[in-house]
């Protein structure tokens, strides 16, 4: 069913790696965005609940900032520190062609 011929293996590997990078980039980008929103919402809600109980309304924005900080910290850990340690495995995967 491959109507465009087999092509050079190196070219196929390069295209596969590029497509993998694109898919990974999309996924990571939107996951990071979701983390930022989720962090602010989760700890903002917790802050709001505590603030409501103790009559300190400022705990809502404080909670949101804490949530944002937690999200940023986790993003750095997951996509910076942790990704760096697994880099060789990812590179090896990207170079291979699984067709």
């Amino acid at each position, binding site marked *: 069913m491959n109507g465009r011929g087999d092509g050079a293996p190196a070219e196929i590997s390069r295209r596969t790696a590029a497509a*993998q990078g694109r*898919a990974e980039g999309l996924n990571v980008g939107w996951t990071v*965005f979701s983390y930022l929103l*989720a962090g602010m*919402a989760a*700890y903002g809600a917790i802050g709001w609940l505590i603030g409501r109980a103790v009559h300190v309304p400022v705990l809502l924005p404080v909670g949101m900032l804490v949530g944002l900080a*937690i999200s940023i910290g986790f993003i750095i850990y997951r996509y910076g520190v*942790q990704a760096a340690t697994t880099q060789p495995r990812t590179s090896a995967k990207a170079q291979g062609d*699984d067709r």
Partner: protein
Amino acid sequence: MTGDVSALASGGCHIFSGCGFPAPGLRDFEWKPFFTIGSVGFTKPMLLAILAALVVIVFFWVAFRSPKLVPRGIQNIGEVAILGVRDQILRPSLGRRGDSYLPFLVSLFFFIYIMNVMELIPILQFPVTSRIGFVWPMVFIVYFLYLYLGVKNQGAWGYLKNMIPPGVPAPIYVILVPVELLRFFVFQPFTLGVRLFGNMFAGHLLLTIFTIATWYLLSLSVGLIYAAGSFALAIFVFLLETLVTLLQAFIFTTLTATYIASSLEASH
């Protein structure tokens, strides 16, 4: 379209004629029903969604009703379409093991693309996905599949446990649980749906603004220069939207493929 815009189209509402600019808005996304079944009105977006589904079904049925080893005619186009989704969306995320999901991803991609591209087809000229009610069912289907595959492959407890990547210190787990739960069950599906809806909504609104402005400014006065500028922008937005319609279908389907891949893996 309704309201002022239809008044503009029907008559001489131009600049310097005492007629104010009929700015497009939310009302341009609301349609009078063709007919009603009970309390449900059958509107143009519904008709276009059905039409989009029929286009996808009929195209692939015609292309592969009697497939030849050496493809000819429409089978060629069908194969290029399927190979495009396989090589650019499915294989990069799932590899060969994901080939069983190819029919689902091909259907999803082309259904979304046809619904989007209806924005640019004269007479139809409305992107179905600019009504968020048509986007949520697709998000629901994708998320249901995502959860089902995750629980099936990793077990319910394992799936929840794997939401947080391994190697995270135990006290951090407690801090991350509310963030992860909210991200997974609320914000990830929310961004998946709102991105598609928002892009198509904004694109259609831009196209409507510049098209209406061109007509409104068209008069034997200095407005003619502005009309030419507005027309040029309308053409630019039209060309931009040809790219956006494809890109949004691609992004939605690519993210679906990465979600499926993460459900099949032990950690994501």
